């Protein structure tokens, strides 16, 4: 057969948030007029969906809907520090900081309501824009609740900082606690290798990743799908080349990226092994999802055609060359 199929698998692990150093993030929350919420924190979206994740967290913690939440972000002069947008730290560091700040703001509001209704604060439930007493008739909208707070001289604001208990590495043996949360994942890739051209098509990827707790499962899938495809680019086609320090791949005509026609169906499986330390149990997914893809694809190529590519990328040229070498090796064995 000209087109041969095979499967391979690989696993991987990753640490969440900054490595071998203390990480930290701050957030402010305010339950605002009309029962809306303002969350202030120092980073913004880089595409991963963090703004929606933070809105979901604030909404659930405070008792409004995500659409009621406004995120004031991204400005060193206006919002508290949340460090950087990277290191698979957004949901973990900032999500947990926002949860704690939201709880802080809610406590202020609920304290006023508890006094107003003459019940214990623990008995008050806030959800979907309504504050009510558990098992009783008393209730009011969050808009009314904020109005009540303000009439008592209270602005329901909160703040929080979330930090990690981590250490650097010993300079001699490397021992230390670089992270407080670890995630694990595993992927299977199914490929088709065209032995006439050497082209590899990755047809399917099954990817299971622990995220601690998925705040937005569709967003997690989006991260996995994107990571798999970015890794696939490195596995099969992307190659930044230099000649005497000058790039020979100066634009996208030469630096080849995967298009919609080059990507597999990605089948995500979300595993939730909650983080025992943070208040939400969340971890992260942005980087770890990329780790198993390349070896899974290379292992699948070996399964399909019996050649092992140990130098990336596995271009059509490299595949045919390896197939040729394998045929020649067999021929020379036969000759002996």
């Amino acid at each position, binding site marked *: 057969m000209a087109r041969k199929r095979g499967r391979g698998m690989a696993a991987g692990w990753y640490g969440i948030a900054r490595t071998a150093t203390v990480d930290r993030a701050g957030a402010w929350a305010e339950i605002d007029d009309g029962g809306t919420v303002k969350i202030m924190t120092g980073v913004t979206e880089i595409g991963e969906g963090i703004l929606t994740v933070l809105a979901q967290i604030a909404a659930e913690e405070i008792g409004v809907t995500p659409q009621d939440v406004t995120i004031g972000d991204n400005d060193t002069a206006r919002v508290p520090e949340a460090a950087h947008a990277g290191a698979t730290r957004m949901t973990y560091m900032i999500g947990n900081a926002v949860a704690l700040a939201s709880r802080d703001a809610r406590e202020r509001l609920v304290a006023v309501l508890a006094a107003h209704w003459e019940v214990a604060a623990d008995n008050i439930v806030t959800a979907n824009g309504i504050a009510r007493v558990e098992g009783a008739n008393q209730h009011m909208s969050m808009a009314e609740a904020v109005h009540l707070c303000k009439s008592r001289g209270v602005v329901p604001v909160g703040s929080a900082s979330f930090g990690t208990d981590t250490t650097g590495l010993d300079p001699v043996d490397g021992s230390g606690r670089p992270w407080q949360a670890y995630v694990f994942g595993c992927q299977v890739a199914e490929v088709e290798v065209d032995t006439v051209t050497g082209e590899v098509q990755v047809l399917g990827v099954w990817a299971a990743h622990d995220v601690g707790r998925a705040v937005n499962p569709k967003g997690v899938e989006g991260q996995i799908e994107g990571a798999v495809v970015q890794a696939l680019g490195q596995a099969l086609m992307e190659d930044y080349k230099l000649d005497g320090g000058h790039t020979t791949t100066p634009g996208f005509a030469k630096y080849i990226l995967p298009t*919609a026609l080059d990507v597999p169906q990605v089948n995500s499986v979300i595993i939730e092994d909650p983080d025992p330390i943070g208040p939400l149990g969340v971890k992260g997914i942005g980087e770890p999802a990329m780790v198993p893809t390349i070896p899974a694809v290379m292992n699948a190529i070996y399964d399909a055609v019996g050649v092992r590519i140990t130098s990336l990328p596995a271009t059509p040229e490299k595949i045919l060359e390896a197939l040729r070498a394998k045929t020649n090796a067999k021929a020379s064995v036969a000759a002996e």
Partner: protein
Amino acid sequence: MLTCDEYLTPTSLDEAFAAMAAHRGRHRLIAGGTDILPWAREGRAGDVDVPVLIDITRISELTERKVAAGRVRVGAATPIQRFLDDKAIATAMPCMPRCAIWFADDQIREQATIGGNLANASPAADGVPPLLAHAAGVELASKRDGRLMRRLLPLNKFILGSGKTALADDEIMIAIECDALPGYGGSFEKVGHRRSLVISVVCLAGLVKLDASRRRFEDVRLALGGVCPVPQRLTEVENFLRGAAIDSGRLERAAAMPLDFVQSRTRREYRREVVHGFVMRGLINALRRAGADADVLKPELEAAYA
């Protein structure tokens, strides 16, 4: 970036020739623009200033298309996408739709012109091998001493080398003419590093006509691109197969014929190997599309290459 002082858009050949005469030595013709704009960028030509750009795509004769009397005539400014969606052209040129689908992407195919693809004379130009297989000619016009002069050059006399053509400074490419080959089975095989927006490392255009028995080649046309400075017809392979009975052994012998014009210094071994496979694959696909009997080839052979 590409800069210019003037951008002219003549709507007739007379206007175009007048503009060319007025700006001789300072002008360049532009059609789709899909090659010249990326060319004038860092890593390639860098910032380029062309005093006068003359856009020839609004000259009506350059966008006319017709199929008549066994011939196809396509204006030089015809966008590549027409070879995919114009039924009359697609029927008369059976490997062109398959070439077009591999050409850049849907959007660039609406902008890039067939004339521009030929005039660029890239060794990897996808449009060239199918037109070679169609024995295409290129009509060039000039205005000399007030008289409109036209000449028809065979495509293999028009493209002289990588980036070199027979187009004179005062000439405009008007149209491409070629045999209409309805009833042929067409194929276009291509490999690059992905499956869209990709430059050919090797491409092959195949056309096969069967005789009435459906078991014999009446005509075979093959042309290769990407492997040497100018795309080539595989004349010896064609002659070896033309008139012959279709059988697996003959196909294998055809594909094994030496192809010493695989000159590209880079990836030479790779290209030779793919060319061998593509001759088989291109012939098999074209045979099938021409309606060859199901049992003319050994199933193992088809499986090994298709």
